[in-house]
């Protein structure tokens, strides 16, 4: 006799969450559950699997509305703590990007530059409630006569502060080495000459998009943990590429899907929105993201049980190849190897270090599990799907 396969809807799961009856586990815990009970049982038992990632994510920033001044100004040039923000949106709206560097920074003129302050730090200062010096310049119009304005503000004084990150939570990312004879300073960290070390990003089997490789439940409108608050997936992220090479388990073996995220900066916490100064590269922003994945059916149970052994990354040379635009993989390594602290490449053992925090990723998955368990966080059903490819059956 064939047992009927379990199917659940978002409504059913949300109803259980509301009643405090939903069974929620983290993506790490799901691995053991499926191992022990099998896919069928796990599908029945588990309602939601939580994931997490915490890493420097360029392509982040915030829209800020600083309110009208008296006399009014149409601010076309804007600085926040001397970091330029983009003002070509409206009179008193701007966008502060994570990678913008403070004006007058020596940059890489003495290499490697330190990049002590920039957009990422402004955003962290805002979230932390610190005072920000706002400086405005306008060209003057009949309706907006003022040409200059300066004031101190905290996040509470802004009319609106919206984190909007055009590309976050890369589904997979490169493992970086350096084949040249000199130390290089990259967004993947410090890379010693002659492949003396390797660095990698993503939190492996805890990482959101590894747990839903075809974006069945992670779509436009999905509610997420963003910077310590409840945020949303707004769109697919820039450079989203569902057509990447995939393993038998459907998991991409190279950079693939991305998401654009949005949330209220005023509700966020500096523990999860932290400025980063990357030696010799520039400024960025650590962003904490967690995504809940509903176990709608056996496929979702199988996907969320993926483990580091079965997730792979490509190794690239950041010394010559990547800077010249050559995407030539030097080899494939599993996240189990990466996490063990060393990889083997061309017969050579190379120490590997992460640039994203597994410790914090785990904490995020735990917080999200708690929120859902307590009924404080309901799932948001995607209103539309991200571009994807056919799931092989």
């Amino acid at each position, binding site marked *: 006799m064939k047992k009927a396969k379990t199917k659940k809807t978002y409504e059913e799961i949300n109803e259980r969450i509301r009643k405090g009856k939903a069974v929620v586990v983290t993506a790490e815990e799901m691995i053991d559950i499926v191992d022990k009970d099998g896919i069928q049982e796990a599908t029945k038992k588990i309602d939601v699997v939580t994931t997490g990632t915490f890493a420097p994510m360029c392509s982040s920033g915030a829209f800020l509305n600083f309110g009208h001044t008296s006399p009014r100004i149409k601010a076309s040039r804007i600085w926040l703590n001397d970091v330029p923000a983009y003002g070509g949106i409206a009179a008193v709206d701007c966008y502060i990007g994570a990678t913008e560097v403070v004006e007058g920074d020596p940059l890489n003129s003495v290499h490697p530059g330190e990049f002590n302050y920039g957009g990422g730090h402004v955003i962290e200062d805002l979230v932390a409630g610190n005072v920000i010096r706002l400086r405005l310049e306008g060209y003057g119009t009949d309706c907006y006569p003022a040409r200059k304005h300066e004031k101190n503000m905290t996040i509470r004084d802004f009319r609106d502060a919206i984190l909007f990150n055009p590309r976050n939570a890369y589904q997979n990312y490169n493992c970086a080495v350096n084949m040249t004879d000199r130390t290089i300073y990259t967004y993947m960290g410090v890379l010693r000459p002659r492949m003396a070390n390797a660095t990698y990003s993503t939190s492996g089997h805890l990482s959101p998009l590894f747990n839903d490789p075809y974006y069945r439940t992670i779509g436009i409108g999905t509610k997420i943990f963003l910077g310590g608050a409840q945020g949303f997936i707004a769109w697919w992220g820039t450079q989203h590429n569902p057509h990447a090479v995939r393993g038998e388990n459907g998991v991409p073996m190279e950079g693939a899907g991305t998401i654009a995220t949005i949330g209220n900066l005023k509700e966020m916490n500096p523990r999860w929105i932290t*400025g980063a100064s990357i030696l010799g590269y520039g400024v960025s922003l650590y962003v904490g993201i967690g995504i809940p994945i509903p176990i709608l059916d056996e496929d979702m149970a199988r996907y969320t049980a993926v483990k580091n052994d079965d997730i792979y990354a490509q190794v690239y040379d950041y010394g010559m190849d990547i800077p010249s635009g050559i995407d030539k993989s030097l080899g494939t390594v599993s996240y189990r190897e990466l996490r063990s602290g060393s990889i083997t490449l061309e017969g050579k053992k190379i120490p590997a270090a992460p640039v994203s925090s597994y410790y914090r990723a785990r904490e995020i998955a735990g917080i999200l599990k708690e929120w859902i368990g307590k009924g404080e966080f309901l799932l948001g059903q995607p209103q539309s799907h991200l571009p994807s490819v056919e799931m092989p059956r």
Partner: protein
Amino acid sequence: MTRSVYCLSIALMDQKLKEEQFSKKIIIHYTADIVDQPIVHRLVKDYDLAFNILKARIFPRREGLLVLDLTGTKENFDRGIRYLKKAGVTVEPLSDRVTQNQDKCVHCGACVAFCSTGALYIEDKTFKVLFDPEKCTGCELCVTACPPRAMEINLL
């Protein structure tokens, strides 16, 4: 291990000798008036201490600092430190001057790639990044290479 096996192996004797050796990294601050005294030389001659200079800085007014890795027996080490203090320099363990700010560290692990002494390392299972001050040589690389600036070093 029995004594006879121990006597047979010179390699193991070396090991035993090493174990008796005591090693510590210290930071010495001296003022201009004692800059001419051969203090390091006396540590070697009178107290039989081996040293490794990890850092040496002299400032415009001729005061300066030295970061030394001293090795010798515990007894000689303690006597050497007493000598230094008598000679009028301040001596402190280097480990007191390097800290990992727990409020700022995000446990990203980026430092594991560039800290060449293994002083910063990832703890098994928890994946927390821990700092072992005894291994740190005070190279100061982490001061600018840690993205959230969690490593605080003040050698002055």
